[in-house]
């Protein structure tokens, strides 16, 4: 038999057994599509977390004061003094609380953070119009505020908030700057908040010390020494009580988050693998169910002079065509699915090419193996046995 004729015969068989073809393709399609969609989803959430973590900056540290009482709190001066430690570029202590802000008839609850001017550098969070909190505002406990874009929209609509006066927990504050839009980070929305001078905030929330400090490090390579120096300094301040503070390395946080994400991705991969196997079993079933019919066919073909290699070639081409088309459609469906999931969740999904390759190859191998395995068996039968098969 000629090769081209073998191809033609196989295509004809694939085409004329539409139900069988469609069902086996479906098994492969679902397997591949699910894997791609699931992995795409997992990758998407991983990317999202990484982006958020990156927005925090890996060259930053944060110190949280957990101790209570005067002996175990950090005064603003002590906090600012931490900037003297070598390799620390800037220190941004914050005091935060919740407050109701009101403008004319509109009011809303927001997070209020008391900051110093260094907040801008340390958190990489600037204003798009107006000015920032200046040292003089902090020194004089000025009632000035920076407003986040979402809060601004809520209170002022599309009007320019700079220069307007709002009431924060009843006190009048002048808005001096509109913050740039920053979206959400792991610590919540950055656009629904108000920043005021830290001294003003201490007064408003009646807090003596500083409970949270963000620190920007100059040289990332010397992070470890810097953390050590910082901890030594804090230990001295707290007179040996190391339970009163905690230093968070942003890198540690990234690692923790990544490991959580890895776990989730691994689980998704298991689910995807199970789907592939289930899809494979579906394909196998279809192929095996049609074995009686096909064994007869093989018997007839052999009685007419088909050789074993003719039979195998035909079935191989059939299986490759079905698996190939099924797999290709599955890739298409998987991408559409992961896009849809991305849109529904508002996350970017991304599908790594090797996942596509693995899913495709696995399904194709399942399709081809179970396509030719019964055919191989039947083609070994004596024609008389194949013809009698039932």
């Amino acid at each position, binding site marked *: *038999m*000629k090769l081209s*004729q073998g191809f033609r*015969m196989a295509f*004809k*068989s694939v085409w*004329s*057994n539409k139900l069988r073809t469609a069902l086996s393709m479906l098994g492969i399609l679902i397997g591949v599509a699910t894997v791609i969609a699931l992995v795409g989803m997992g990758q998407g959430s991983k990317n999202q977390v990484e982006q958020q973590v990156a927005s925090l900056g890996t060259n930053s540290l944060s110190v949280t004061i957990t101790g209570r009482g005067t002996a175990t709190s950090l005064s603003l001066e002590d906090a600012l003094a931490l900037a003297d430690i070598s390799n620390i570029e800037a220190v941004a202590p914050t005091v935060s609380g919740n407050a109701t802000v009101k403008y004319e008839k509109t009011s809303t609850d927001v997070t209020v953070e008391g900051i110093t001017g260094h907040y801008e550098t340390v958190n990489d969070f600037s204003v798009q119009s107006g000015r920032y909190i200046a040292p003089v505002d902090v020194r004089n406990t000025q009632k000035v505020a920076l407003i986040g874009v979402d809060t601004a929209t809520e209170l002022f609509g599309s009007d320019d908030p700079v220069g307007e006066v709002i009431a924060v927990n009843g006190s009048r504050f002048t808005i001096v700057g509109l913050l740039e839009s920053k979206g959400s980070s792991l610590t919540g929305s950055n656009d629904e908040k108000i920043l005021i001078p830290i001294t003003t905030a201490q007064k408003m929330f009646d807090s003596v010390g500083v409970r949270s400090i963000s620190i920007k490090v100059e040289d990332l390579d010397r992070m470890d020494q810097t953390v050590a120096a910082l901890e030594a300094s804090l230990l001295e301040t707290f007179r040996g009580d190391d339970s009163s503070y905690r230093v968070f390395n942003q890198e540690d946080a990234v690692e923790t988050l990544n490991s959580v994400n890895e776990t989730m991705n691994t689980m998704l991969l298991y689910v995807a693998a199970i789907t592939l196997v289930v899809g494979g079993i579906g394909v196998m079933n279809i192929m095996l169910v049609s074995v009686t019919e096909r064994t*007869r*066919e093989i*018997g*007839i*073909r*052999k*009685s*007419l*002079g*088909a*050789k*074993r290699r*003719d039979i195998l070639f035909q079935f191989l081409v059939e299986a490759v065509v079905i698996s190939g088309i099924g797999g290709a459609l599955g890739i298409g469906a998987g991408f559409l699915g992961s896009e849809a999931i991305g849109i529904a969740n508002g996350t970017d999904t991304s599908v790594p090419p090797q996942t596509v390759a693995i899913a495709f190859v696995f399904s194709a191998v399942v399709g081809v193996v179970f396509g030719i395995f019964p055919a191989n068996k039947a083609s070994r039968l*004596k*024609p*008389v046995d194949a*013809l009698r098969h039932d």
Partner: protein
Amino acid sequence: MIGTKQDALIEITQLVKQYVMGRETVTVLKGVSLSVYPGDFVAIVGPSGSGKSTMMNVIGCLDTPTDGSYKLDGTEVRGLSDNKLADIRNKKIGFIFQGFHLLPKLTALENCELPLIYRGLPAKQRREMAMTALEQVGLGERVHHRPSELSGGQQQRVAIARALATNPPILLADEPTGALDMKTGQEVLSLIEELNRKGHTIVLITHDMDVAKRAGRTVVMRDGELTETVGRRETHEAQPRLPDGVQERLVEQA
């Protein structure tokens, strides 16, 4: 024997066929011998279960003998490889089965082209040969029908056309009328007779004496043993000794 001067097309000597079923060995053909010469129309007749189909499967190289010798067109068939046997089936033998054995998804023409495809002929030549064969069996008008769109008699004629398409020296028919009613069965038999008159060598297998009578020569298979009968009278007399066959024939005729 007839025509010993001419070389036999089929020469079977002391052929044994055994099946192993579990621990038991069943001997279905117990050392049969048969010679078929070019142009012969031989009927192998016998009751159901006597081993006729087994015999035909061996003759058609669909099955391999356990012992003995089988020479087809001068070549010893026993011990040939699968591929060689496939070649022999393709070139030397045309099968006509009781159950037609057409591929349901293919049209009459495509079914007839199948053996020519395995012979490796180009499309145009295949088509011509298949068409000629279909016209020969009177189905020139129905070439694009699938088996399911044809009557039993027509399907059997497609099968005959498929057997003829390769122009094989031997046509093997195993109960070709078994699945057909009387009238279409007769038509198919007339067609086979006509093919014999045109020079095709035919081996016909049947349990029906009336069918066997149409052949030029009848051999009787009984319990795995073959006896040559000469002339039609004797065949008739042999009838009472074949209660199974007669009974079946009567049932069929009823």
